[in-house]
């Protein structure tokens, strides 16, 4: 059998049969090779594709945690809205891909059918918004503003609306209790981007497609805590999306609640008073520029002096944070961020920086004491201070004779500080310092007070401000010298002259720089929050607290309360004795100094207030007003850009804020019952056994209810600010103004 019998076949057929056999074998070999290529060589890749194929996840969003004020009043919470959603998988099972159902639905919701269909289409490169960029297995929201009547109709006729659901869902809301808007502090949410999903993919808190992410303020700072964990159910599905098994299921965990130190009532007062102060400033005439003050932006901070807790923080111009809820429209977004907007998203309390003017003198005073000058010594407060050809004038050319540092603070005498700073500059070796470190007491003190770096407040994107010391000057010069040397002109206009001088020796600490610096002018920049930290430190004996807004995190069930302990970032360079004498001087500012005309009737014997006014001139703009104050428990700092003097612009507003805090009545008596926060709120709000926090009722702030007397003092015609400024050859970009009522306007020399 095995021998090949003689077939008598012609060779042609025999050869062809062999060819066929070879052909058949090679075909089979091709199949085997291809099979090897797919299964062995690329098997892992296909296995991955297969696993992605059959698992789909459905997300139940976690309810975001509330942000509460110090007494439990919600500043940000969630409201239940009726959300109508459509299930794509259900719709696609219909013959017309659900068109008929969506058209009917549009009729009930009073929407255009095309709008409804656009909302349920999937986003891709070619599809413009609106479209759905989430998982196609997720119910797609069509509207979150359904009325109960509409929802009822949909439910009653559910057989007519297969795949359509109307469910209550939690939507973020910013209720503004008692008109405390708190917009910039709270921040806002917006949907997560593809990029963020990619980056967070392998971290321990990955984003889901449907997530909203905190973009600024507390919403961003505490995003992880507030976000909670979305519930994810992973289903094994077949090719039609039919569920054939549940792979994994995590229940949604709501986010934790954040209790802040903000007091909604004080916040409302601060916002109102800031806005009123700015309105009032706009009605004041600025004789230097010949037009009314612009008062284009401002900020106020109320901080607990002994802990750093922020009681109120307002920034103006402001906006309604609810515009972000449910997706912001392009027009609204442009209004908030566009080039011609007034940038209301900026929190100017931590992101606005300007020269501090005379409020900086507390730093210079501390520096002088550090440098060995006796606080109670006698320093000449002359009408002007001359260095070579430059003349640095005291405001109004007043001459107080020899006075102590305390008195110099009280009357804000510039020439005293000019002299001290100039002395130290000379001791350090002048423009070319001696070998070895120059002592730089005045700059060191600024750093020791925490200037030039962030305060560490629990808000994102805080700015550092600036201390124009030698290192900074060198760096700044290196960055700008090319431009300066190009545009500089010895005989040109003011800007060209300054550029010329900066080109020559902008990297060096010049005498004029040191002198200007001592009274908070020149290149120095501080933020309102830094001022609040400094004045709190004077109040509390020297501790520089990190300002904090978050006070405690409460787990969703209320069982776990994690307090956020205040932290300090060092001590101010003042010993107890210096502090005490400085405090006395700052109290003098309120009783008989530059701010006295705004604090008439204040019960200073019962509640001692301390203040320092400041007016910084910005080249090409109107002056920036500063008023930094503190009591035993609080520091209150207000600044308004282009608004004139510190006391003139902010005096009444800060007075009113203290009235509200301490319950000071019109007649100067104190009604502790009406006081909003006679002492700082220490305890956390009471947490109910079910984890909820009952908020006390809030009454709207009525500024006229118990306003202190002395309204007539406001805007007195004697409030004529003017400037003493170095001669134009001085190279500072900002010049200084005193904020004392003046009789006569001085022409710049």
């Amino acid at each position, binding site marked *: 059998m095995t021998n090949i019998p003689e077939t*008598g076949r012609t060779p042609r057929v025999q050869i062809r049969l062999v060819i066929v056999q070879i052909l*058949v074998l090679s075909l089979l070999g*091709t199949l085997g090779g291809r*099979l090897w290529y797919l*299964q062995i060589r690329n098997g892992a890749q296909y296995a991955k594709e*297969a696993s992605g194929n*059959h698992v789909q996840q459905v997300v139940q969003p976690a309810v975001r945690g509330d942000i509460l004020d110090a007494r439990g009043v919600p500043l940000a919470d969630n409201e239940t809205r009726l959300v109508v959603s459509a299930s794509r998988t259900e719709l696609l099972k219909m013959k017309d891909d659900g068109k008929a159902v969506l058209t009917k639905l549009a009729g009930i919701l009073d929407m255009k059918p095309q709008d409804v269909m656009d909302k349920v289409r999937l986003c891709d490169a070619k599809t413009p918004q609106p479209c759905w960029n989430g998982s196609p297995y997720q119910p797609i929201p069509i509207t979150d503003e359904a009325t109960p009547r509409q929802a009822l109709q949909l439910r009653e006729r559910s057989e007519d609306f297969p795949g359509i659901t109307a469910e209550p869902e939690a939507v973020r809301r910013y209720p503004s209790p008692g008109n405390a808007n708190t917009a910039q502090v709270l921040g806002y949410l917006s949907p997560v981007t593809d990029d963020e999903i990619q980056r967070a993919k392998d971290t321990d808190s990955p984003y889901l497609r449907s997530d909203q992410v905190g973009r600024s303020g507390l919403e961003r700072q505490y995003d992880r805590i507030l976000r909670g964990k979305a519930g994810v159910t992973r289903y094994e599905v077949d*090719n039609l999306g039919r569920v054939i098994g549940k792979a994994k299921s995590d229940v949604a965990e709501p986010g934790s609640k954040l209790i802040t130190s903000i007091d909604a009532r004080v916040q409302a007062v601060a916002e109102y008073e800031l806005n009123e102060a700015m309105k009032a400033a706009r009605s004041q005439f600025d004789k230097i520029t010949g037009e009314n003050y612009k008062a284009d932006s401002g900020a106020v901070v109320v901080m607990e002096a002994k802990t750093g807790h922020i009681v109120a923080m307002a920034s103006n111009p402001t906006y309604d944070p609810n515009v972000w809820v449910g997706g912001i429209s392009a027009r609204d977004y442009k209004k908030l961020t566009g080039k011609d907007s007034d940038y209301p998203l900026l929190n100017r309390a931590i992101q606005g920086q300007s020269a501090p003017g005379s409020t900086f003198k507390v730093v210079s005073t501390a520096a002088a004491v550090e440098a060995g000058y006796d606080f109670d010594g006698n320093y000449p407060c002359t009408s002007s201070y001359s260095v070579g050809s430059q003349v640095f004038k005291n405001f109004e050319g007043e001459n107080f004779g020899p006075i102590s540092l305390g008195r110099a603070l009280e009357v804000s005498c510039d020439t005293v500080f000019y002299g001290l700073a100039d002395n130290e500059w000379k001791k350090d070796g002048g423009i070319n310092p001696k070998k070895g470190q120059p002592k730089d007491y005045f700059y060191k003190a600024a750093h020791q007070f925490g200037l030039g770096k962030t305060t560490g407040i629990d808000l994102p994107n805080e700015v550092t401000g600036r201390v124009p010391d030698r290192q900074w000057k060198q760096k700044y010069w290196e960055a700008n010298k090319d431009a300066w040397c190009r545009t500089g002109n010895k005989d040109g206009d003011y800007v060209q002259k300054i550029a010329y001088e900066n080109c020559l020796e902008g990297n060096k600490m010049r005498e004029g720089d040191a002198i200007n610096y001592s009274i908070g002018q020149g290149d120095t920049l501080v933020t309102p929050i830094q001022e609040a930290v400094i004045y709190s430190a004077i109040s509390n004996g020297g501790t520089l607290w990190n300002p904090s807004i978050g006070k405690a995190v409460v787990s969703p069930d209320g069982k776990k309360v994690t307090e956020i302990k205040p932290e300090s970032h060092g001590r101010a360079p003042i010993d107890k004795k210096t502090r005490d004498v400085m405090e006395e001087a700052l109290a003098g500012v309120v009783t008989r100094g530059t701010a006295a005309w705004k604090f008439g009737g204040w019960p200073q014997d019962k509640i001692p207030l301390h203040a320092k006014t400041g007016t910084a001139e910005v080249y090409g703009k109107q002056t920036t007003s500063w008023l930094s104050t503190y009591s035993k428990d609080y520091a209150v700092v207000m600044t308004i850009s282009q608004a004139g003097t510190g006391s003139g612009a902010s005096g009444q507003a800060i007075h009113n804020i203290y009235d509200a805090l301490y319950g000071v009545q019109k007649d100067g008596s104190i009604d502790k019952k009406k006081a909003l926060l006679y002492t700082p709120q220490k305890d956390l709000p009471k947490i109910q056994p079910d984890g909820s926090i009952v908020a006390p009722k809030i009454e709207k702030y009525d500024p006229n209810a118990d306003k202190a007397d002395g309204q007539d003092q406001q805007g007195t015609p004697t409030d004529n600010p003017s400037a003493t400024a170095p001669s134009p050859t001085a190279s500072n970009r900002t010049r200084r103004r005193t904020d004392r009522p003046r009789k006569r306007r001085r022409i710049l020399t």
Partner: protein
Amino acid sequence: MTGANNFSVSGYGPERARWTRVFARDSLARRLDWPILLSAAALSLIGSALVYSATRGRTEINQGDPYYFLVRHLMNAGIGFALMIGTIWLGHRTLRNAVPILYGISLLGVLLVLTPLGATINGNRNWIVFGGGFSLQPSEFTKVTIILGMAMLLAARVDAGDKEYPDHRTVAQALGLAAVPIAIVLLMPDLGSVMVMVITVLGVLLASGASNRWIFGLLGAGAVGAVAVWQLHVLDEYQINRFAAFANPSLDPSGVGYNTSQARIAIGSGGLTGAGLFHGSQTTGQFVPEQQTDFVFSVAGEELGFVGAGLIIVLLGVVLWRACRIARETTELYGTIVAAGIIAWFAFQAFENIGMTLGIMPVAGLPLPFVSYGGSSMFAVWIAVGLLQSIRVQRPMSA
């Protein structure tokens, strides 16, 4: 060749006659080609497991009975086996005499498809549906009758010793005989079957010893025909789409390309040893359409892996290898031609079917011989196995 003949030769006692008759030298059983038989049976059994895996969850087609397709597949294989035995019993030579009748019946069958009796399934109008869920694809049987008919014509004068090769006239007649049913099947249109038939005709001509001119002429005509079909829009849109999707599966991933890419994912994810029978996620999730029929190989790829899917190719290889031997060893040209026709049919159909699931051939609705679910195909391939066995068994004992 007969039982009596064997008996007289054996010399064993009559009580052992039955055994010895079966296993005696030159007995029918000993002369059967067992590798082909066992491979075909193994393929059918593997097929039943794969068909079961692919259909147990498809409630929309299995009428709620997970074993619906398994039972029917095994029944089909059983009937096919019986048809094979019947074919051996009749013998291919007997069938040669019946060719005109068989040819007529199959021609009638394919014509019936074009009448209202025919049914369209998956775009192919190649079914005759009888009552009671019983249906047939006449085109499957036509493949057999084309082979038998052409072999009869081409071998007649050569086997009679008149000629060394079939003359041009005979070749032309044979081609005409094949062309009629092929044209009808093209009208259905069942492109896959047409392709198989054309390749089969080519195999038949090769084995017949027809002049090279015919071979190349046919190849040339095929190429011209393909261009003409393309240019004259004879093909329907979906058929062009299928072709385009093979060339570029990502062209239309949710449409035609979906089948191929899902099948490829299923096979690729199998790896070396597969996910295990009934454990393939692609199969369980029914991501691959037509998985019990045209794409049955993807079940093997995913659940049995390279080892199992490779085994199917090897078993098909055994069948084809042995068939080649049969074709070469038989003395009659008639047997050679029939065997070669079957080889061309099986080889191309298997290559096309597996090739399309692997993404190297365009998608055409063709079952994988023995493995795919489908009665007509199963019957036809087992009849073909019967013909191969018959050619081998009835080969003259010695020259």
